[in-house]
């Protein structure tokens, strides 16, 4: 047998605690795994609850009829029938709001994003980036408050589609600005240089070269921004309040799916409708999310 040392070893401090350290390590792993599983479980629970409770209320009427009033709902509940009506006013309202706010936010957001992309290093541009971050961090209810003061009070003198759209546009703006700048950064410099070398005027380089090349990134950003604002309730409470009918007048109130959910929640007769509308909203938002991720991954290899 050989002695296992040829040089002196540090005095007996090589604690023989391999076992306890290994155990500790394994224990920590179990705890970590547990918490991660808890998180997944909550997500699954929420989605499952929505599906289980909401599916039965969804039928063709759901998409084609407006929300019932509380009396109709009460009658239906008393006789055990499915509550009549649907959320057409909410769906139409949400789409209308989002369309108008896109008209505001998308062009503006893209242009600001281009500005930031073209000015990567100067102090003013950094300030603009910081302002964009501040804008993104403003709680949605505060945005609603401000737009109330601006539009509801001064412009339309009533809760209105316009107010709601402006609020949503403000919320979409930072997301679109950021994703535009990031997508443009991924376009190879050489493309831009080649265009300039051919004598292309600046604005054409932007419109014909930069934007098309970054197109999928831009779309991704826009879809993500849309999916974010479609779910917002708070700012709409203060700007467009809701409407029992479908309305196309910019200066009048309109409904939206999250607003309907809130309404149903607050009305004891309509509570069952809460689940179907939530399921619809969740599914819609989810589809947008998945769509944007799919587009992002598709166009990555060019």
């Amino acid at each position, binding site marked *: 047998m050989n002695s296992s040392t040829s040089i002196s070893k540090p005095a007996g401090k090589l604690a023989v605690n391999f076992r306890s350290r290994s155990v500790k390590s394994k224990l920590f792993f179990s705890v970590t*795994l547990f918490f991660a599983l808890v998180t997944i479980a*909550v997500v699954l629970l929420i989605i499952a609850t929505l599906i289980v409770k909401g599916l039965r209320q969804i039928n063709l009427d759901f998409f084609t009829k407006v929300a019932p009033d509380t009396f109709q709902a009460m009658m239906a509940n008393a006789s055990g029938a499915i509550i009549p009506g649907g959320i057409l006013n909410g769906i139409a309202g949400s789409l209308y709001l989002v369309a108008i706010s896109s008209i505001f936010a998308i062009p503006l957001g893209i242009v600001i994003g281009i500005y930031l992309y073209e000015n990567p290093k100067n102090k003013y541009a950094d300030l603009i980036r910081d302002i964009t*971050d501040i804008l993104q961090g403003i709680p949605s209810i505060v945005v609603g408050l401000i737009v109330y003061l601006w539009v509801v009070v001064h412009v339309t003198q009533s809760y209105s589609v316009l107010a709601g759209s402006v609020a949503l546009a403000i919320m979409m703006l930072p997301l679109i600005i950021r994703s535009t700048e990031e997508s443009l950064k991924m376009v190879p410099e050489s493309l831009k240089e080649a265009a300039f070398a051919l004598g292309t005027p600046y604005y054409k380089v932007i419109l014909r070269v930069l934007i098309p090349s970054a197109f999928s990134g831009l779309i991704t950003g826009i879809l993500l921004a849309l999916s974010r604002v479609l779910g917002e309730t708070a700012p709409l409470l*203060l700007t467009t309040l809701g409407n029992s009918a479908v309305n196309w007048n910019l200066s009048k109130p309109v409904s939206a799916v999250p607003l309907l959910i809130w309404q149903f929640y607050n009305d004891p007769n309509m509570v069952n409708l809460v689940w179907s509308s939530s399921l619809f909203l969740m599914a819609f938002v989810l589809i947008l999310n998945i769509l944007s991720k799919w587009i992002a991954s598709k166009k990555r290899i060019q």
Partner: protein
Amino acid sequence: MNSEKITRYILFGSSLFLLILTGGMFYSLVEGSLSSFHVFGWRFLFSSEWDPTQGDQHFGALAFIAGTLFTSVFALIVAIPLAFSTSLIVAEYFRNSWFANVVSTSVDLLAGIPSVIFGLWGFYALRPFIVSIGLSHQGFGIFTAGLVLAIMIVPYATSLSNSIILMVPNELKEAAYSLGATRLEVIWNVILPNARSGIAASYILAFGRALGETMAVTMLIGNANILPKGLFSTGNTMASVIANEFGDATGVHLSALIEIGLLLFIITAIINAIGKLIIKKTA
């Protein structure tokens, strides 16, 4: 006309517009708060009296400031182990595996769920559970609202942490393993010190998000305009009092609500700035 110049002006102009927009937002909040400020001054921040009865109105934001801080801090405390564990699973233990994909997709799903739906789930699923295990009478309050808020901010806390942990160079971990460290010891002594500030920044940003959350909190906190007395007490947050009382508020009442909005604006801006500053420093 030089098209190049026009293009540049348009680009610059748009950035200017953003500046003016944000400045205008701040200005409007200040302007709207003025009448409340004239009546109550700085006491507004320290008084918890909130009484809208006409003729004898007293407004003080302390109850809401306290409610906001209580709920958000509690939410952060609950969220940290969840977010940290999720990050470790995705970025370290199960890195690049299908399981990490499942976990990170779940977290992405979580991020996409609208606030009002969290509120519904909290109201119909979580609250009865809390009542049934006897923690609270009605199930409303800081505790319930805080729990739901915690789940809502987990995605914000994990997304940044994931990339920070992934960036710790492999060679450092290998060096530690070669010295006989267990996995936990590698996480504690190598990954954490190198990822510390990035992870802290992500929690700060998540905290900032929690401060402004409205719908889910409104549905669960009990809407009592009082100084919260304990973890299971009901209360109100700045965001939820605005949502609740806005509909009927006029005059000084409305101005007080706007002043609260201004407070929220400032507090969230500062917290987010701190978070971003930490990120910049570590880059």
